[in-house]
C-alpha cells in the first residue's frame, strides 16, 4: 500500500517535472529558432552599402541609410526631451512625495503608461501634433517616442532613489546643505548608475517601436534632416518592406531587423553592466 503510494507520487513527480522541462525546451526552442532565422537572414542582407545608400525603389540597389539616420535622430530627440522629465518626476516621487496621496496617483498612472499600447500613444500624438500642423513630421515621431521614454525613466529613477540610504541624506542635511543640493549632489550621484540603467532601458524600448511612428513620422524614401518633414525610421521601413511583394525589399527588411535587434540587445546588455556596477558600489 505504502509502496504503491510512494511509487505513484514518484511517477507523478517525474511526469510533471518532465512536462516543465518540455515546456522550457518548447519555449526556448521557439525563441532560439526566431533568433537563428534572424541571424541567418539578417547577415545575408548585411553589406557596407546598407549604411551608405538610401532605401531603394523595388528592383534597384539600395540600403537603409536614411532609415538609420531617422531612427537615430528621433530616438535621440525623444531621449533628450523625455529623460529630464522622467528623472524630475521620479525625483519628486522618491524625495518629496514619498508618502503623498498625489504620489500614489502619479505612480498608478505612470505604471499604466508603462505598459499602455504604444499605438494609442501614436494616436494621441497624431491628434495633438499632426492634425494641428497639418502634416506628418519627425517632431511628432520624436514626441511619440518621448511619451514612451518618460514612464520607463520615472519608474527606474524612483526605484533607484528609494534604494539610496536615508543616512546619506541626513548626513548631508546635518551639514546644513539645502534639500535641493542634497538631491543633486548626494542622492542623484549615489543613484547615478541606476538612473543610467533606466535611460538605457528606455532607449532599448523605443528603438524597436513601430506602431507609434506609423502615423506620426510616417516614412520617407529620401535622406532627410528636416525635423518638420516626414522622416524614415528603421521599424517603419521594415514594416513597409516586409509587407511588400518584392524579394530585394524583404532582404533589406531582414537586415534592418537584425540591426534593430543588435541595437536593442546591446542597450539591454549595457544596462545590465551598469546595474552590476551599481550592485558592487
Amino acid at each position, binding site marked *: 500500500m505504502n509502496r504503491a503510494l510512494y511509487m505513484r*507520487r514518484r511517477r507523478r*513527480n517525474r511526469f*510533471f*517535472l518532465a*512536462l*516543465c522541462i*518540455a*515546456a*522550457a525546451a*518548447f*519555449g*526556448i526552442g*521557439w525563441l532560439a529558432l*526566431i533568433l537563428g532565422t*534572424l541571424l541567418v*537572414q539578417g547577415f545575408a542582407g548585411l553589406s557596407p552599402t546598407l549604411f551608405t545608400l538610401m532605401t531603394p525603389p523595388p528592383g534597384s540597389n539600395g540600403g537603409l541609410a536614411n532609415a538609420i539616420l531617422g531612427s537615430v535622430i528621433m530616438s535621440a530627440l525623444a531621449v533628450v526631451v523625455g529623460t529630464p*522629465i522622467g528623472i*524630475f*518626476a521620479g*525625483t*519628486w*516621487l522618491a524625495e*518629496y*512625495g514619498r508618502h503623498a496621496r*498625489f504620489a500614489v496617483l*502619479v505612480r*498608478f*498612472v505612470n505604471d*499604466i*503608461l508603462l*505598459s*499602455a*499600447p504604444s499605438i*494609442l500613444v501614436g*494616436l*494621441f500624438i497624431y*491628434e495633438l501634433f499632426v492634425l494641428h500642423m497639418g502634416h506628418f513630421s519627425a517632431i511628432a515621431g520624436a514626441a511619440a517616442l518621448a511619451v514612451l521614454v*518618460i*514612464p520607463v525613466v520615472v519608474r527606474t529613477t524612483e526605484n533607484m532613489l528609494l534604494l539610496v540610504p536615508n543616512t546619506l541624506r541626513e548626513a548631508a542635511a546635518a551639514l546644513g546643505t*539645502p*534639500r*535641493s*543640493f542634497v538631491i543633486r549632489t548626494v542622492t542623484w550621484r549615489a543613484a547615478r548608475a541606476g538612473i543610467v540603467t533606466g535611460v538605457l*532601458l528606455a532607449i*532599448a524600448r523605443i528603438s*524597436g517601436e*513601430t*506602431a507609434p511612428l506609423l*502615423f506620426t513620422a510616417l516614412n520617407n524614401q529620401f535622406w532627410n534632416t528636416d525635423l518638420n518633414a516626414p522622416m524614415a525610421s528603421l*521599424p517603419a521601413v*521594415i514594416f513597409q518592406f*516586409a509587407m511588400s511583394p518584392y524579394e530585394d525589399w524583404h532582404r533589406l*527588411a531582414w537586415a534592418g*531587423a537584425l540591426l*534593430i*535587434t543588435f541595437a*536593442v*540587445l546591446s542597450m*539591454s*546588455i549595457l544596462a545590465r553592466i551598469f546595474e552590476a556596477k551599481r550592485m558592487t558600489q
Partner: protein
Amino acid sequence: MMTYAAATANPMRGAVDASLKRFARTDARFRYFTFGAACLVLLVFTGIIIALGNGAWLAIRTFGAGFLTSTVWNPVTEKFGALPAIYGTLITSALAMLVAVPVGIGIAIFLTELCPRPLRRPVGIAIELLAGIPSIIYGIWGLFVFAPFFQQTIQPWIIASVGDIPVLSSLLAGPPYGIGIFTASLILSIMILPFISAVTRDVFETVPPMLKEAAYGLGCTTWEVTKNVVLPYARSGVVGGGMLALGRALGETMAVTFVIGNAHRIAVSVFAPGTTISASIANEFTEALGDLYVSSLVAIGLILFVITFLVLAAAQLMLRGLEARAGGHSQ
C-alpha cells in the same frame, strides 16, 4: 576691537542671510520643477484620454452604442462597427495566454528548481533579454518563416484530419492561408512568453527557502513542493504578471499586424483571417479617407484603451498587494 568686530560681523551676517534666502529660493524652485514633471505624467495620461475621446466623438455620435455590436466595416458606404476587431483582439489574446501561461510557468519552474546551477543565470538572462526584443521581429518571422511553413505542411494535415469530428472541424476549418487568427495568437504567445517567464521566475525567487525546505523535510517531492508551496505563495505575483502580459498582448500591434490577414469579420474557424483593434489602426489609419473612417479607427482605439486600462489596473492592484506583503516580511 569692538568696533572692528561689529564692522565685520554685520556685512557677514548680511551675506549669510542672502545666501540662505538664495538657498530657500532654489529649494522651492527645484521642488516645484520636479512637482511639475510629476504633473506632466498625469497630463500625458489625461491628454491621451481627451485626444482619443475627441477623435472618437464623431463615430460615437454617428453610430451610438450600436458601434460596439455592429459587425459591418465598410469604408465605401461609411458604415463601421467595432465587434470584429474587439472579438479578434480578445480571442488572439486569450489563445496566446492559453499557450504562454502554462509554458511560461513551466520555464520558471525549470529555471528555479530543475536547471543545473551553472546554467541558471545564463538561461535566465537570455530569457530577460528576449523579453526586450521588439515585437516587429516576431512579426516578420511569423510572416516570412512560420506562415508559409504552417500553410504548406501542418495546416492542410490538421484540416484534413479533423474533417469528420463535429466541433473541431468547424473550429479548424477553411482553406490553409497560413496567416489568420491562429498564427497571430501563436506569434503573440511566443512574444509574451519571455515576459511571463521572467516575471514568474522573479516571484518564485521571493519564496522563502525555509518554506520549501520545510516541505522537503516532510518528504514532499519537487512537484509537490512546487504545487503546494511555491505556487500558492507566489500566486498573486504570477496572476499580476500574467495580467501585465495580457495587457501587452491586447495592445500588441506589430507581432499581430503581419500575420492576422486584416479581415473585419468574425469567423468560427481559428484558421480564418481576422483583425485586432491595433492591427486595424496600424493597417488602415494612414490610408483612411473621410472624417468618419478616421474617427471610427480612433473610436476602436478608445475601446482598446478602456480594455487595457482595466486589465493593467487589475494587474497593478495585485502586484501592489504582493509588494506590501513582501515589505511586511522583510521588516
